[in-house]
């Protein structure tokens, strides 16, 4: 979608899916990885994950991995566009945190 130019906040799910796909993974692998790195805080549900993956594929931020050993399970990986979107988001999040810390003071 081109109409969301300038609107850069990613959903938490999309953010972690993109991070997970720095190495090729299938659906189950993504869910496991995200659960692990967030200490089980983020549990992507299958319907949400499936919708997000299709959306990201359409947008060209991820693609099907060239060769996945297991043919029945589709593997995905991040594209250059996806990496760019992720970097922009990391910068945005840094700004949020910096401003938050500056106003609210150090965290005890």
């Amino acid at each position: 979608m081109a109409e969301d130019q300038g609107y850069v906040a990613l959903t938490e799910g999309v953010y972690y899916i993109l991070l997970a796909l720095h190495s090729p993974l299938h659906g189950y692998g993504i869910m496991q990885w995200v659960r692990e790195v967030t200490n089980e805080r983020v549990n992507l549900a299958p319907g949400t994950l499936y919708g997000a993956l299709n959306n990201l594929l359409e947008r060209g931020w991820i693609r099907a991995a060239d060769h996945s050993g297991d043919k029945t399970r589709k593997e995905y990986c991040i594209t250059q566009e996806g990496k760019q979107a992720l970097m922009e988001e990391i910068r945005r999040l840094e700004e949020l945190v910096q401003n938050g810390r500056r106003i609210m003071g150090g965290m005890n």
Partner: protein
Amino acid sequence: MRRSIIKLFMDYEKEEKWLNSLSAKGLQLVHYSFPRYVFDEGEPGEYIYRIQLLENLPTHAESQAYIRFLEDLGVEMVGSYVRWAYFRKKAADGPFELYSDLESRIRHYSQICLMIGVVGGINLVVGITNLINLGTPIAWLNVLAAGLAAIPFTFYGRRMLKLKRSQQIYE
């Protein structure tokens, strides 16, 4: 042992609760053909059940791809009725939800409302047209169906709006 129960639900979330309460008692849904539920006696609480309105019929290629995706995650489809699909997953694998964010839950409700709206709308138009043009009393059945459709349309719509309000604050 197999057991079958005939039951009608207007609210799929109540239906889900009912299936899960039977699962807790050891009755596991293995088949559904409207309006008959078929259960196998098994381990109490072995499965968690979830119901979803698919975007297409279960036989459609896109639904098939989705169902295969779910199978890879240990989710099994035990039955369907038109676009409604009945899924289950072993409770030992942990919690089982189909959606984990507001956006996808809102989307699901909006698809349900759209489907009910179309069915209700067609019945209303057909009913009124036949009443005016043919004066057939049976056309009142269409009007009645449209009236019935208004009930779930309203409660699903309310749930959707509630989530939309949350979405103004939360993701």
